[in-house]
Every structure is written in C-alpha cells, then in structure tokens.
C-alpha cells in the first residue's frame, strides 16, 4: 500500500468514527444547553482533553515543529507564550465566566450592560477572531494536502493536480466541519476534539521517545547534532534567528526586537480572549470542574509543547534543513518527514517509514478538523445566541428557534470560509493566527477583565474596548509589512506599509484597555450596581449558575 493510500484510509477511519460519534451526539442533543454547551456534563479530564484538542492546531503541531527544525530555538518562543497564556485563563477568567455565563462570551460582557450594543460588539468580534483563525487553518490544510499526500507539481492524484487537490481539501474540510457542528453541536464537536487530542498526544509522544532513542536519551547530543546539521552552528540554539533579528540598520533592529516583544505579549494575553476556548468552560457542570479541566489542559498542552521541541530539533538533526526545505520552504512538513525517518530507523526500513508517515499525516488532518469545528461552533453560537436571539428577536426567541438559527449560522460560516479559503489559497495567511490572538487580546480580554473586576465599567466602555481594540489591531496589520511593501508581503507590488511591526499587540492591547477605560469615564449612564452585585456574587460563589 502506498503511503498516500494508507494516509487516506487512516484519515477516512477517523472521519467515519467521528461522524458516527456526531450522529450519536445529535440524538442526545435536544435543548439549547445541549447544542451550545454539550449538556454541561463533561468531566474535568474530558474537557481538558477537548480544550487541548481545540487549542493544539496544525499551526502548533506542524508550524512550531517546522520553525524549530529550520530556525532552531526561536520556534520555542511560540510554545512558551501559548502555554503561559493558560495562567490568565485559569486565574482570572475560567471559573468566573463559567459561573456568570451560559453559552457565549457575551453572556458575561452583557450581564450588567445594555444587551443590544454589547452583544452586537461581541458577535462582531467573535466572528472576526474565529474566521481569521479558521481561514488560517483551512488554507493551511489546502497547502498541506499536496505535501502530505506527496503530490508533486507535475504529478496528479485521482486525476487532480496540486491546485485542484488544494481546492478539494478546503471544500472537504469545510464540509466536514459543517456536519460536525450542525449535526453534533457542542457534544459532537467535543468528542471529535477528545479523539483528536488522544491521537495527537500519542503520535507526538511516540515520535519524541524515538527521537530521544536515536540520541541515546542524551538531550545535549540531540541539540549538538541539530545545530551541526542546520549549518547555523551554535546560533541555531540561541534566540534571534527569526524573531528580533539583529541587522545592519539600527532602526530595523529596534523594530525587529519590538516586534518580538509585541508577539510575545499577544500570545500570552490572547488565549483567554479566544471565543472558541471560552465556550469550552460552559461544557462542565461547575466552576470547580472548569478549574480542574484547565489544570488538565495545562498539563496536556504543556507536555505537547515539550514534545514539539523534541520534534523540531529531531527533524533538524535527523531529516536536515535541506530535505525539509525541498518539500516545503516554510518547514510545515518537518514533522511528517521526521515520522518517515523515524519509521525507517525503528520500524523496519522503508515500509515502516511509509507507514509512520501515513499515520502522522492522518493525525495532522484530524488536528485541523477538530480545530475548525470548534471555531465554527463558537461563531455560530455567538451569531445565534448573541445576535439573533438578543439583538434581532430582543429576547423573545424560543430555544428551538435559537438552535435552528445556530445550525443555519454554522452552515453559513462554513460556506463563507470555504469560499474565502479557496480565494486565499495561494496567499501566505499564517499571520492570521497571530492576528486572531492579537484581536482577542486587544478587544475581548480588556472587555472581559473590566466586566468581571471593575465595578464602574459601562456599556460604552465595553463596546469601545471591543471595537477599539479590534480596529486598532486590524488596521495596524493592514498597514504593516505583512500586507504590503516587502518581497514577503501578501501584496508584493503594493506599498502602503507605514506601521513597521508585523505584530500589532504592543500598541493594540494597551489601546483596547485604554478605550475601555475612556468609554467608561465618558459614559453619561452610571454602571448598574444591582446587576454588578448579582454578577459578582454569582461569579464568585456559583449561586444561580446555569
């Protein structure tokens, strides 16, 4: 059996298993709480795994391993930021949100505010963040398929060339995520994420053990070989090969270093503002279990990022930068290529290599599917619960109508993402993940923290924080070198880049907090003290929690 056939067979098995779970979950999904929050019956471990499944995207698995494989140490910065970020969620957000809210992020933001403006703002920001993230995953899936199935520029697969295969993959990923969400709701999506997290953790763990075995469990010699093979020498093991690069121009060096700080801050503050992560806290019965599920998630995600470190350096040492770049200049195939090499060494030559490559490629596809399903669910929940039920129907919608609209929204979000994904399939949209984190940190996080902890916070403060943070982040990226002005920009021939950093966080996050403060002090209306009392008591004690 060729590797691509095996990959496809394994992937189809995953799809069939998850579709079976989805159909089963749909039979258990009756109320709005079932659809939005999976019936709030998941255990701490299940939700911890699902959080991991939602969070460990293809960008984490393939992207970080690739950055480390090609550039060394700098890829580790991402892992650290993505992990430390969970402390914000654990200490400041998870339990209070679980106690005070029901289905969406906006339940907490709008708790003591005027519903229509705040829920509209929350829906806008939820859909924006989720669609940015979604697009990055879908375009990533399209780019990966040719590589993972080994379709070279001149060959075809089932009569498809690389470009057709890309489009077909985007359509297939989109269609599957629509089915998971529309049919299975939160229950189905959660199980898909749990299954994927198991597969990814086992796959990454086996690879890590094999990498260490190849170096007789000596970390220092793994690093030494990686540095030697990279051709970069010791610099490969030090920060500074990609982020905060020192160049001839002092101004540019300054910008590069600011860019690194900006990225670091957005990574650590973004997670607790990502709507698809926040809604996971509603799937457990109590705030205590929400806390325990975040502890599980921290353990799982932390372990996973330690694995990616080994995978990245392992790929650098065992596969080599030249072989990786020949497959994919961005390094996205480093992990699958490493699997092939490890299979060759440990599982009996070519056949073992082929088989292990196929397994890891299938895991990578499963990873993408679980993440996009979570994103679609978050945006459709917000469109239905925040926009349709609260803004359009002004609270008169029945549960049944809400769930129907959520399903229609999931279908619409999925369809729009497929179209945008196909249009953007040849653009480098990896920056969209960083942008999603920046928007979440700049707009959502200030609004959430002020809502939970600042008594005087008002409706105007909430909307200004969200729109202000979101707009600042998006505008700065629009005028950054990512979009225009350099040979690596999205639009190479245009030139309107006056903002020198690729990461807006260092400006847009303080801006979001500032706008939230400004809107509040400029409000004519006073904060509703009675509602704040209710929210605070509920958030801290769990009284009246759904």
């Amino acid at each position, binding site marked *: 059996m060729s590797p691509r056939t095996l990959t496809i067979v394994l992937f189809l098995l995953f799809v069939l298993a998850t579709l079976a779970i989805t159909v089963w979950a749909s039979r258990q999904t009756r109320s709005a709480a079932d659809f939005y929050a999976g019936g709030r019956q998941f255990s701490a471990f299940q939700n911890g795994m699902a959080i991991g499944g939602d969070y460990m995207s293809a960008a984490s698995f393939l992207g970080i391993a690739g950055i480390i494989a090609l550039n060394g*140490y700098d890829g580790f910065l991402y892992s*650290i930021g993505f992990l430390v970020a969970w402390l914000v969620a*654990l200490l400041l957000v998870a*339990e209070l949100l679980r106690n005070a809210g029901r289905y969406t992020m906006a339940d907490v933001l709008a708790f003591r505010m005027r519903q229509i403006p705040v829920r509209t703002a929350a829906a806008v920001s939820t859909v924006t963040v989720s669609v940015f993230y979604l697009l990055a995953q879908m375009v990533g899936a399209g780019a990966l398929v040719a590589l993972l199935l080994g379709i070279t520029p001149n060959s075809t697969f089932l009569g498809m060339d690389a470009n057709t295969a890309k489009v077909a993959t985007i359509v297939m990923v989109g269609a599957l995520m629509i089915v998971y969400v529309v049919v299975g709701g939160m229950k189905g999506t959660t199980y898909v994420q749990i299954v994927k997290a198991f597969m990814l953790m086992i796959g990454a763990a086996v690879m890590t053990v094999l990498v260490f075995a190849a170096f007789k469990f000596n970390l220092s010699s793994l690093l030494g070989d990686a540095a030697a093979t990279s051709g970069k020498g010791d610099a490969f093991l030090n*920060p*500074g090969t990609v982020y905060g690069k020192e160049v001839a121009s002092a101004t540019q060096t300054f910008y590069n*270093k600011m860019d690194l700080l900006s990225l670091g801050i957005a990574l650590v503050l973004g997670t607790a503002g990502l709507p698809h992560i926040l809604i996971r806290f509603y799937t457990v019965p109590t705030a205590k279990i929400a806390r325990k599920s975040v502890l599980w998630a921290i353990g799982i995600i932390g372990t996973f990022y330690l694995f990616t470190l080994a995978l990245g350096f392992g790929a650098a040492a065992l596969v080599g930068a030249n072989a990786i770049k020949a497959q994919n200049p961005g390094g996205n195939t480093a992990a699958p290529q490493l699997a092939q090499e490890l299979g060759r060494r440990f599982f009996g030559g070519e056949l073992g290599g082929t088989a292990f490559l196929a397994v890891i490629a299938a895991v990578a596809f499963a990873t993408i599917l679980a993440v996009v399903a979570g994103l679609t669910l978050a945006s459709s929940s917000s469109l239905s619960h925040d926009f349709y039920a609260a803004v359009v129907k002004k609270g008169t919608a029945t549960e049944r109508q809400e769930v129907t609209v959520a399903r229609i929204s999931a279908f619409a979000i999925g369809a729009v993402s497929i179209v945008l994904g196909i249009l953007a399939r040849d653009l480098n949209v990896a920056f969209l993940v960083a942008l999603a984190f920046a928007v979440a940190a700049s707009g959502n996080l200030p609004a959430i923290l002020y809502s939970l902890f600042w008594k005087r916070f008002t409706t105007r403060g909430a909307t200004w924080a969200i729109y202000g943070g979101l707009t600042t982040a998006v505008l700065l990226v629009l005028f950054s070198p990512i979009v225009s002005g350099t040979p690596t920009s999205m639009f190479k021939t245009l030139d309107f880049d006056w903002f020198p950093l690729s990461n807006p966080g260092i400006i847009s996050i303080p801006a979001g907090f500032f706008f939230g403060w400004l809107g509040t002090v400029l409000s004519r209306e006073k904060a509703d003290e009675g509602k704040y009392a209710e929210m605070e*008591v509920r958030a801290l004690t769990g009284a009246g929690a759904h």
Partner: protein
Amino acid sequence: MASDPYRDMQSTPEFGALRKALRGFVFPMTAAFFLWYLLYVVLSAYARDFMSIKLIGNINVALVFGLLQFVTTFLIAWLYARFAGRKLDPIADELRAKVENGGTR
C-alpha cells in the same frame, strides 16, 4: 421594598473576605508570572550573550530559561488549585447556599 439577595450578600463581610482572598491571590500571581514571562521575552530580545551561555554540553541558558517557564506555569497552576480548594471553595459553597436559600435575611 423587597431586598435583593445578591446586593445583601455583596455587602456582607463574609463576601468581602471571599473577594479579598480571591483578588489577593490572583492579582499578585498574575503580575508575577506576567513579569517573569516578560523578563524571558526581553532577555531573548536583548541579552543574547547571556542566553547563549552553555551550561551543560549544548544545553544553554535560553533553553533552561524556556523550560523554567514550563515549570513555573505548572507550579502556579498547582498552587492556585491548592489555594482555591482550601481557602475559596469552602467560603464560596457556604455563601452560595445562603443566597440560594433566600438571601441572608
């Protein structure tokens, strides 16, 4: 005028103590891990000579510093869970029962 159980609860000294205990732990801890993380990022950007000092074999300060961020994250998570379980949950459960059984009247 009927009294509002939530406002009544919010003004009790017990609730004030719960709020103080929660904030007294999470705010300083958040500041601590954020500054500790920021120190790591700033050193990565500006103290490259320091970060590249080799400690054992090819294992350098940068790697150890990065791994320490993992250690402190796990540690803070564990400390918080222990603190919340011992100091917050018992009070929160008690106050919740009071609110749900018709306020503190």
